[in-house]
């Protein structure tokens, strides 16, 4: 069944390129994948595994399998894929490029998360590189700048991937095989491996100071690409650090813990302040997604500080790891929803400049409600999924700490990170107020509210946000 999850988007892509109706094929493939993905996540044992020998020296297999963490990421991927397929307006005559890119990126994300071999884990993520390059370069918003942005994004991500490859090979050659099951702390070069993995995975996740590709890329990418990239693909790096980095180089990671803490605080505070300064809604959302990565890195730092284990003695995930996974899921859904709605705002009013928008609540109340919902989620309002994730992250920062100890670096970082909530409240509420409240601006006068088809992805994602927010055990049970 896992092979089907991977093959369905690929076969759909070939079908579209050969002439099948693009939108229908994509929606069909995404819907089937959603059902299969949910089923596989709820019953990992029934999903089965795949393992074919690909190379003997070093031992590499094409192997697929699911466990708790990857089940959650798989659910995230299939939900966001369906929402992405439903979002955005495809320009006339560009259906082939638009929908095949969505499917290829989805295939890459799904492949990366269900892989249980380092080689294919890395390889599947790169499947998204060329579709992103083409989509931003050809169909991105922003006139002529989009070409420069496409180049910058591609070369930056390529650089990150190559650094990551160096770390993976350096670690993999010291292990018995490249399979996840054989991941263990390596004997030599742990510091170098840890640094290479942090920089490599970090660039893919927009860790400060390797983050400057992200905001322009998301701002100019067409909506489905931004949703898939910011929502799903970025989580690849975080998942990789948790799964691979902590397993192969725990002492190395500990060596660089303070550096990681400084960088993630820069993500939260520095990039947070940059986000407040944004005047364009899409830029703001792009920068906010960079900022939120800081919280997930904080959870990873907490995991590093407590010894590098992500599983407990009873097989379930530790608090820090569960926090990271839950927040990854929550952030993925909420950022996808944000980009989807921002695209609708642009489609209806023609602009995303916040000083040209205003009073949209009068003319598009449903859009206003949904955007308000995701704004609250992003801030971390309890009852929505992001709060569950963030509170767990902050608690994991203090895990194992008792009041008779001094505050360690992780604890201090957690205290500073909590101020990020205030920063995100500032920019989100400002954006909401400028766009929806106040007097109705010229561009927002003759706007129709969301149609049923436009509401579909937003409703799908909002229900997920609310469900996981009100009952986080839905996901946390998968992690046990």
């Amino acid at each position, binding site marked *: 069944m896992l092979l089907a999850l991977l093959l369905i988007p690929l076969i759909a892509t070939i079908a579209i*390129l050969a002439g099948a109706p693009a939108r229908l094929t994509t929606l069909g493939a995404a819907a089937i994948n959603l059902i299969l993905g949910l089923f596989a996540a709820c019953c990992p044992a029934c999903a089965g595994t795949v393992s*074919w*020998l*690909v*190379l*003997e*020296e*070093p031992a590499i297999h*094409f192997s697929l399998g699911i466990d708790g963490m990857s089940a959650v990421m798989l659910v995230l991927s299939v939900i966001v894929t369906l929402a992405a397929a439903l979002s955005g307006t495809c320009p006339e005559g560009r259906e082939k490029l638009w929908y095949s890119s969505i499917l290829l990126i989805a295939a890459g994300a799904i492949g990366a998360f269900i892989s249980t071999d380092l*080689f294919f884990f*890395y*390889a*599947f993520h*790169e*499947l998204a*590189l*060329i579709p992103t*390059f*083409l989509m931003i*370069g*050809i169909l991105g918003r922003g006139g002529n700048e989009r*070409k420069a942005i496409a*180049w910058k994004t*591609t*070369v930056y991500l*390529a*650089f990150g991937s*190559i*650094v990551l*490859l*160096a770390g993976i*090979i*350096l670690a*993999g*050659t010291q292990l018995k095989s490249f399979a996840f099951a054989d991941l263990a702390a390596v004997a030599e070069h742990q510091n170098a491996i840890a640094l290479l993995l942090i920089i490599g995975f970090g660039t893919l996740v927009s860790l400060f100071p390797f983050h400057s590709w992200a905001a322009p890329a998301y701002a100019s990418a067409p909506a489905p690409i931004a949703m898939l990239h910011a929502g799903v693909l970025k989580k690849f790096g975080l998942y990789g650090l948790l799964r691979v980095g902590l397993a192969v180089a725990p002492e190395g990671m500990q060596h660089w813990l303070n550096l990681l803490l400084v960088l993630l605080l820069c993500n939260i505070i520095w990039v947070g302040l940059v986000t407040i300064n944004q005047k364009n809604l899409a830029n703001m959302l792009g920068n906010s997604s960079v900022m939120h990565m800081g919280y997930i890195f904080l959870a990873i730092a907490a995991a590093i500080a407590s010894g590098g284990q992500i599983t407990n003695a009873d097989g379930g995930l530790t608090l820090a790891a569960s926090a990271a996974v839950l927040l990854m899921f929550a952030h993925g859904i909420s950022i996808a929803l944000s980009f989807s709605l921002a695209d609708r705002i642009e489609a209806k009013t023609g602009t995303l400049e916040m000083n040209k928008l205003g009073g949209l609540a009068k003319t598009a109340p449903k859009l206003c409600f949904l955007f308000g919902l995701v704004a609250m989620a992003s801030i971390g309002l309890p009852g929505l999924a992001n709060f569950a994730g963030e509170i767990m992250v902050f608690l994991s920062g203090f895990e194992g700490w008792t009041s008779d100890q001094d505050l360690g670096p992780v604890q201090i970082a957690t205290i500073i990170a909590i101020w990020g909530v205030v920063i995100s409240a500032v920019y989100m509420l400002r954006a909401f107020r400028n766009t929806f409240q106040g007097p109705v601006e010229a561009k927002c006068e003759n706007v129709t509210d969301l149609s049923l088809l436009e509401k579909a992805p937003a409703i799908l994602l909002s229900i997920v946000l609310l469900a996981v927010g009100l009952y986080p055990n839905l996901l946390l049970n998968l992690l046990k």
Partner: protein
Amino acid sequence: MQYYLEFIVAGLGLVLLLWEAFAAPKKKATLALVGATGLTAVLVALIASSCSTCASTAPEWMSRFVSNDGYATFFKGFALVSTILVLLMSFDFQKVINKFTSPDGSDTNAGEFYCLPIFACAGLMWMASATDLVSIFVALELVTIAFYVMVAFMRRNVGSLEAGVKYLILGALSTGFLVYGIAWVYGATGTTEIAKFVDLESSSALLFGLALIIISLGFKVGAAPMQLWIPDVYQGAPTPITAFLSVASKAAGFGVAITILRPFLASPATQGSVVTILVIMAAGTLLYGNLAALSQTNFKRLLAYSSIAHAGFLLLGLATGAFDSVLFYLATYLIMTFAAFFVLALIRSEEDSEEISALNGLGKRNPLLAGALTIIMASMAGVPLTAGFVGKFKIFEAALTNLDKVSWLVIVIAFIGAAAGFYYYFKVIRAIYWNSSEKGSAIHLPLITKVSVIVLTIALLVFGVFPLPIFDLIG
């Protein structure tokens, strides 16, 4: 039987030459197809005779000079496949060849073009199984002389003539280096048989001879600082010959390098110096090839610089002593380079231009070709899930396992080179999809080119995920 294949190939070349001269076929290009068929038969014979149970020893009279092991069979098959693809490419390229060899554009003077690659193939096959420095040299001469003529073949094209003269002069110089080096090595060790290079003492005579041989081989494969001839010669030569040079000649150079350097890399007396020379050459080659390619606007010249970059990766693999990874990289290099050159030859003969801007708007004009070229460029850049990535992966893996031998610096340069590759190969993808062309007409795709490009592209994708069959070939 397996020891007489080269004679059959050389005989095939002679038969075709005689046929061309005395009973001229209506269209000279059919010689290419006949030659390709003949070589396919030889390839089948090679595969049949190299099964593990039919190994035989060489006949008495040639046993000193040739022997067949796994690597030799691999390189022979490599030479045969390359020549078959070159002949197929030449068939579709005949319009251009005819234009530049006779004043009226007919094929009166073009006949030999389809026979010469076969001689070069025989020479490559002999080089593959050579076990003596002298037989290597003789086979090498057969190859290079055939190439001198082929490069300058389009005699009405100034670029081709200039390329031929440059290649002749520099090639002759490098041959001189090779012979001089062989002489010194003979003087230092007392033998020219490679199998007898054991228990070596590191004398300055031996190291000097080795250095000269390495310089000569470096010229052949395009290693810094002997790589300056490559862009001009590759750009001027007829496109099928450029492909032949880029793939087969380079592979033969590496095959000979492996054969000659294997005892020296294994012996502790000479290992350190040889590895140092190879690492320095690899670093220089990687830097030059990748950085110079960044600013190219001519597709053919871009492929020339990129082939220098690929040679850098191969040299890195050679320095680590992991010859299997070198052979695997060469196999994937064959597939992707020939695929790229098929497309280039098509563009040259249809659009009369080799610039990257001639590819503008290919996405609209011929989506199949555009998609194939995207995959080929991705493979050359080293995007995962393509064969090119697996090749680079194996080289990086060999380098990182032998860190103490090669040291960090060249590995960092290799990684930077791979990253730079993303820019210059993606420039082609940009031209295909982002830019639009002035002529919106569809491009006519001849049958042989179409089938070859499709087969090679699918091979790139299949071997990117399941590379084991190639490893089984290497043995």
